[in-house]
């Protein structure tokens, strides 16, 4: 196993730490469920030796744990012996679900449902894995206990991942595909079940079963120690026969999971873009893409299967040789008259038990490899740098005065300078418009204020305090931002409005709707505020969504309000009304508007004119428009020409 896998798995174990008390109970249950197996083969011997062959029953020939029962039935008739033995078998069956000599006559409780033949659909079983090495009453109780434990572990793990997803800086999501994120939460996290339980439980359960079989052989047939050693020999053989395949299996397992993520991502893209796909006649091509990705996922899963099969077949070889030798050795003892034919059955049963346990240990490597592949994808996400407060970040006091940008620059990851040495200040009570041609850096500049982005140089101060030194929560709690592309989640209008202010009163909601000019259409809806908005707000037109998004920001009632092209989808009449209300709403706060529309720009107290990331001009509309060769004036003239 590679170092990476070891590291991944040991990290997974840390998630079990909080559950360690319950894991210890589960371990005890595990041993308790294999312990009764020591009794299971003996009724078979009694039937063969004393019922079928009619040999006399001498309790002294039985090991201590069977002797009391043997003494109890000794001297009874054949039928009596048979019935008592049958009764014992039925008791074993009801309590632990095992009664016969072969592995098939043993139940191991599980709740494994049918899954498809790809990695993805098998994970729901993993997330809810409940299992026991026993059946019957004990098996059922053990299973319930284990399933709860598994679910709690998975719940904790995927909650941590989801939390981390939310703490990632916004830019991270530009490159990560959404389907991929969903895939990680739903499909990759259950790998922790296999990883942790296989690491923690298999090394206890399997050796316990093998050890119990060996101990029983020792107590029953101490004069033939080779029998005990043969049972113990199953352990190293199972462990090391399959080891050479571990690396190949891990690589293929990684491939399989990545192919699965690609399928989900393709489906997500194709479905969420259904309009573009339909209108551009791309349906067949999207299907082709999905067809290819999906079949590749299946192929990758088959590759995992082939490797596993090859390993299994080769592992069969040493195991088969050991079993054959033990088989012949025991037969020779019977032929020599040392053991009875019933004893042969008992020895055979213990060997079977040991072999089954060894088999589960032998696949340990493979399952761990698969689990490590899934987990390393999760951990990669957990390790992405998240938005974090600097150590000892202060709390931003309620904003009273001004926001000041001091020589602020921002450089994109690809090296282009989006904002270049911008300095300005703005006070509460002002309506400031950011104006400039497309790509001038207006949105980037605005993103720097609530620290969606961190400046590459310079700093943003609020009331004289560098925003980098205060906690994100206290900063963002005082800034409301309305994005260019509005997003409403699939809940009621009211729930959407309360997103940033859960405790807002009904009057506050009504006021915000009125100010955002959304009141008219919301009240016309049959269900009013309780209307469900549909996926991405698709029930409403773009303009209606924009107004709801503005209302949502107003409900929060923060000192700073940033609007990124809030009215691009509104008609001039609605827009003018909205700008009027913004003035009203903006009393006592700083409203920063990114706008192309002249009507919006004109009503601003001050205009910041940006081009190529630089602040070229600053002033009121009248001042700037009056500058004969000013950049703003040139911009306006072009715009004016465009008006009929």
């Amino acid at each position, binding site marked *: 196993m590679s170092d990476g896998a070891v590291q991944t798995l040991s990290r997974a174990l840390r998630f079990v730490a909080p559950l360690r008390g319950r894991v210890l109970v589960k371990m005890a249950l595990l041993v308790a469920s294999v312990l009764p197996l020591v009794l299971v083969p003996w009724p078979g011997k009694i039937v063969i030796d004393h019922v079928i062959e009619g040999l006399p029953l001498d309790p002294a020939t039985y090991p201590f744990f069977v002797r009391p029962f043997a003494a109890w039935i000794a001297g009874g008739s054949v039928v009596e012996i048979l019935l008592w033995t049958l009764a014992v*078998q039925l008791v074993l*069956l*009801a309590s632990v679900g095992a009664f016969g000599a072969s592995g*098939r006559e043993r*139940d191991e409780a599980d*709740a494994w449902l*049918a899954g*498809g*033949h*790809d990695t993805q659909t098998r994970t*729901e079983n993993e997330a809810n894995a409940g299992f026991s090495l026993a*059946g019957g009453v004990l098996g059922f109780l053990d299973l319930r206990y284990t*399933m709860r434990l598994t*679910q709690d572990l998975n*719940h904790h793990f995927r909650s941590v991942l989801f939390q981390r*997803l*939310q703490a990632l800086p*916004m830019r991270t999501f*530009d490159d990560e595909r*959404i389907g991929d994120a969903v895939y990680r939460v*739903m499909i990759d996290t259950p790998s922790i079940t296999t990883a942790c339980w296989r690491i923690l439980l298999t090394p206890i359960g399997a050796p316990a079963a093998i050890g119990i079989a060996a101990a029983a052989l020792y107590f029953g047939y101490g004069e033939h120690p080779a029998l005990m050693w043969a049972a113990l020999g199953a352990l190293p053989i199972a462990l090391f026969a399959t080891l050479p395949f571990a690396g190949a299996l891990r690589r293929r397992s990684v491939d399989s999971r990545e192919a699965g993520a690609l*399928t989900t991502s393709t*489906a997500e*893209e194709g479905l*969420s873009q*259904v309009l*573009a796909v*339909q209108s551009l006649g*791309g*349906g067949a091509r*999207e*299907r082709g893409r*999905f*067809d290819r990705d*999906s079949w590749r996922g299946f192929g990758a899963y*088959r590759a995992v299967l082939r490797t596993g099969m090859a390993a299994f077949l080769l592992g069969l070889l040493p195991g088969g040789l050991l079993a054959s030798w033990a*088989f012949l050795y025991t037969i020779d003892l019977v032929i020599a008259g040392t053991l009875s034919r019933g004893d*042969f059955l008992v020895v055979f049963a213990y060997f079977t038990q040991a072999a089954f346990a060894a088999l589960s240990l032998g696949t340990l490597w493979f399952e761990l490899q698969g689990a490590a592949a899934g987990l390393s994808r999760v951990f990669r996400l957990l390790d992405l740098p998240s938005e974090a407060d600097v150590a000892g970040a202060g709390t931003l006091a309620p904003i009273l005065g001004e926001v000041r940008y001091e020589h602020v620059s921002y450089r994109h990851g690809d*090296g282009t300078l989006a904002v270049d040495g911008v300095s300005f200040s703005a006070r509460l009570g002002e309506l400031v418009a950011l104006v400039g041609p*497309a*790509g001038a850096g207006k949105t980037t500049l605005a993103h720097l204020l609530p620290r969606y982005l961190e400046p590459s140089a310079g700093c943003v101060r609020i009331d004289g305090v560098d925003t980098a030194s205060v906690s994100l929560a206290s900063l*963002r709690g005082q800034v409301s931002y309305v994005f260019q592309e509005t997003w409403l*989640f699939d809940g009621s209008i009211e729930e959407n409005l309360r997103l940033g202010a859960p405790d807002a009163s009904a009057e506050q909601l009504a006021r915000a709707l009125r100010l955002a000019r959304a009141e008219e259409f919301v009240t016309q809806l049959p269900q009013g505020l309780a209307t469900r908005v549909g*996926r991405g707000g698709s*029930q409403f037109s773009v*303009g*209606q969504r924009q107004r709801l998004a503005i209302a*949502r920001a107003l409900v929060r009632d923060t000192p700073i309000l940033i609007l990124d092209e809030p009215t691009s*989808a*509104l*008609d001039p*009449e609605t827009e003018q009304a909205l700008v009027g209300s913004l003035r009203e709403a903006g009393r006592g706060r700083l409203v920063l508007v990114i706008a*192309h529309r002249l009507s919006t720009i004109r009503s601003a107290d001050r205009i910041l004119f940006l081009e190529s990331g630089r602040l070229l001009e600053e002033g009121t509309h009248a001042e700037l428009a009056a500058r004969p060769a000013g950049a703003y*004036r040139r*911009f*306006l003239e072009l715009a*004016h020409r*465009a*008006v*009929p």
Partner: protein
Amino acid sequence: MSAANGAPNAATRDDPPSDEARASVRSVARVLARCLRLLAPLRNHLLLLCAGFAGLTLLLVPPSLLFLDLIWTRALQGEPLPELHAWLLRLDPAVSVHVDALSAELRRSVARRTIAGAVGVTALVAPAAMGLWYYQVWILQRLNQLLRMELIERFQNLSLRFHSEARVGDAIYRLTQDSAMVTSLVEVLLLTPAYTIGGYLLSVGLIATVDPRMALLLIAAWVPPLVASLVFSTPMRVGFRAARAANAALTARIQEGVVGIRTLKAYGAEAREQAVFEQASRDAFAAAFSARQRFALYAILIFAGVSTVLAAAAAWGALETSREAEVFAVRLFAATGLGAWNLGLFQWFRSRFGDGTNQLRRLFRTWGRAQDISIGLARVFEILDLAPEVVDAPDAIAVDGVRHGLTFRSVGFQYQDDRPALESIHLEVPVGGITAVVGPTGAGKSTLLALALRLFDPDRGAVELDGVDLRRLRLTDLRRAVAIALQENLLFGTTIRENIRYAVPDASDEAVRAAARIACADEFIEQLPLGYDTPLGERGSKLSTGQRQRLSLARAVLKDAPILLLDEPTASLDADTESRVFGQLAVWGRDRAILLVTHRLSTVRHAQRIAVLHHGQLVESGTHDDLMALGDGAYWRLVRADASEGPEG
């Protein structure tokens, strides 16, 4: 234990039991019937697979009987060999057949040769069995793939009315998780029953040759699992349904949390979203727990039931062996020398009977899983059963060029709620320049475009292309004749070049550049370090809104269709860029029909015809000058509101 036992019963009381019970049999049967259609392309593979497994099973019957007899009766008990055995083991009949008992040395020799033979048979059979299993996996994957493709095609063809309601996350779950169920279904409802029933019948037949009364006992072993199924089917179904619904809700929750991440962060709602997620996650687990423990209990009871029968049969067999009773089909066994019960036959009987009960156990466990699967598939078929609203007429006409243009004739339309979106619209969109439809937000402008694309069909009136109702045209032809650029910019996570030539995948680089020039997109693309090969993030999130708008415009232009639909295509462009874009579009569109809907009057300057839409009705139409001349009309008011925007005031 009491809580565990109580749970299924409580669920039975909560739900209408008779309906659910009937539903469980019926829905499994119905789902199976639907699957048979999907199986058709794979029929030959499936038959071959079943034949392979059947052949392998039958082939192994004589060796297993022989093996147990050789080990138990001959090697362990020392009984003389029948002729057949001696011949097979290459042992001298003089010392092995015609004697009272085998010598110790010969018994050891029998054991060694038997084990060697068993190892040889295993070495042949194990790879063959694995090969068959692998073949089965391949067949089932193939089937899953076919169903996925059918689902995604159906999703694409469903009209937008459906998509506005459904959640993408839910759809993905159906597509991947639920459709995988069809695979399981074939495995669980078709292959497993075929194997288990086949194996069971084989066991009944073989045991009947030993003792027909014991075969009857094996048939009676059906009773306990049947009773368990009657009691458990309904609670299991109820549980599995709840578990699946909870899981789909969770997936949708995650999807939404990821899509809306920016807003959630901006509003400090992460903690609340986290709480909602954790609740959804806990709900999903709780639902799964209650469903799965019912299934586990059911499986345990079935094992206990059939095993009790097996234990009783084994005790009976032991009695028969102790008195060396004659077997039923003496003649059949005479050839092998096995005329009466002996230790080897007892072991064989026990393993055969055990096989029979084990098959029953598998069969009924499978029935339990089928309850889950039939629910998963019912959700898949729910989608497959949604008829697409827009379909080709049986005698659909091909579109062959566009000569005159589009006409809206008395068109009325409303969405699922009762608000009419459009009422008796008359509108001509002739070839030759831009026809603009202006009007306030929510006037019905975008609906007009959706009708022109036939994403919906009008409720009243008709949309016509060159005088032919769109409903009579072939949908693919219509969509080929129409290009569209929208307010919301739907880009794919490929390169800029791939996005522009999405509708025309084989367009030359030259054509891509020309289209980008018309949309004024070339200016920013060429400034990017990778130019046209710049990869875009999901939905093109690396670009600004204005840049995305220009890309989707270039994409529509490149399609080179006779009809171009534009929905606020330049809402996020600055006035200068917008003006240049429309100037170039007007030239490019001289021999095409362009329908532009907008509320920005700046964009209608280049339009030949203007129509004003208000509350779903067409209130005015004409050229800019015509409409202005009307005085105090709707258009005039719009212009006045807009015109107060000049630089000088």
